[in-house]
């Protein structure tokens, strides 16, 4: 436990001395002010065009930012040789991975908090309408995206040899999960028999954090009916009292299993190295 905190502390310090973090901070602030302006167009509660485009914008930026910062942090450990150094210390691989995760999560969430804080504050100053449910839902949505994509970032960082490889893979993963997702799925599922399509689609959706979190927010904004008759039971669960808990449970399982997998990769590397 102490090890985890140590690693996390070191990670946070490194994170906030990293110019990348600040450039993303600036970008995210500019972006959140943009959201604020979009939202200022006579907006009400619920799922509307404005919310839809806000969701899309967040989906473009946050996963990319998370993937970069997360994967670079791991590859730099390899590139700068600090992992080789750390391996000689009596520190568990799991503690190292968890510490990394926690540290990076704190850095990224701080960036997100800064952006949203700025947005909330300025909207307050300017007296713009900003529905609180929406605000909290989007905050939650962004945090969820960051936490889930961070595990993918750790993956990429673990498997890449250097920063450039991590960059390439990050962009590829981002494109695949956010932009190309429906294209690939529709192409692939088109080959499947009709009855398989829905179950496969559901499985793949759970595997893609971007879609998972987006759908949760759409449903929570009250737009569940737009998903059609195939999913009305899901929508009912998520809108029900235990829906959010259920969703957090799924996210937790997601994070834990991928962290364990990353741990396995590093442990293998350690025993061989």
């Amino acid at each position, binding site marked *: 436990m102490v090890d985890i905190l140590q690693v996390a502390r070191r990670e946070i310090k490194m994170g906030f001395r990293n110019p990348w973090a600040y450039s993303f901070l600036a970008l995210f602030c500019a972006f959140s002010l943009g959201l604020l302006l979009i939202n200022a167009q006579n907006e009400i509660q619920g799922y509307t065009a404005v919310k839809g485009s806000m969701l899309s914008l967040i989906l473009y930026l946050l996963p990319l930012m998370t993937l970069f910062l997360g994967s670079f942090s791991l590859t730099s450990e390899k590139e700068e040789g600090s992992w080789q150094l750390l391996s000689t210390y009596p520190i568990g691989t799991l503690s190292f991975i968890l510490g990394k995760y926690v540290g990076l999560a704190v850095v990224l969430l701080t960036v997100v908090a800064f952006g949203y804080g700025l947005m909330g504050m300025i909207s307050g100053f300017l007296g713009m309408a900003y529905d609180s449910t929406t605000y909290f839902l989007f905050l939650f949505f962004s945090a969820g995206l960051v936490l889930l994509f961070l595990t993918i970032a750790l993956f990429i960082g673990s498997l890449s040899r250097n920063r450039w490889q991590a960059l390439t893979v990050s962009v590829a993963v981002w494109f695949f999960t956010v932009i190309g997702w429906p294209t690939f799925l529709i192409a692939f599922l088109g080959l499947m028999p*009709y*009855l*398989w399509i829905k*179950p496969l689609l559901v*499985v793949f959706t759970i595997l893609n954090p971007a879609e998972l979190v987006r759908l949760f927010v759409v449903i929570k904004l009250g737009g569940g009916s737009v998903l059609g*008759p195939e999913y*009305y039971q899901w929508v009912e669960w998520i809108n029900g009292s235990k829906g959010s808990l259920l969703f957090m449970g799924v996210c937790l399982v997601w994070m834990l299993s991928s962290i364990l*997998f990353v741990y396995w990769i590093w442990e293998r590397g350690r025993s061989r190295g």
Partner: protein
Amino acid sequence: MKKWSLVLMMMMGLLILAACGPKKFEPLAINEKVDICAICNMQVKDDAFATQLTTKDGKNYKFDDIGCMNEWKNKNGTKNIGKDYVRDYNDKEWVEFSKASFVYDETLRTPMAYGVISFKDTASAEAFVKEQGVGSVLSASDLSKHEWKQNTDMMQMDMNGGEGHMDEHKSEEMEGMTSDKEMDM
């Protein structure tokens, strides 16, 4: 990567099992919350007028009136249909379309006014006609020659008002045949 492919293989295996299991085009239960007629968009009530068909791909369509199912067949052809079902007017049991008997009369009230109702056998269809005093019994093959006219104007009803009332009363109760009986008879 091995682990992932293993997991994927297992999932695929499960899916194949799940998908290959029920290939018999069983009739599905009507869910009034989400089922609408594939033709006219009206809610499909869980009543004797509901019909459904499953294509050979396993895609299921539900209809609120036999006439709407007929409309679907006109549009899409019957080649690709795995099984099509209608319901018995008296006990709402699903009956294969080809094995069912039908009664048509323009004064019968059905959700889309096609005036055709279905029975599991000729005997109960004939009993219905006898009891109501109107209607003609048709078989599934007779229906292919049926003109499927929607009765959208009931002016002539005024003339045979008495019987009209009976039918109307009967079919207005689109939800529960049991309650219908206890009050109607």
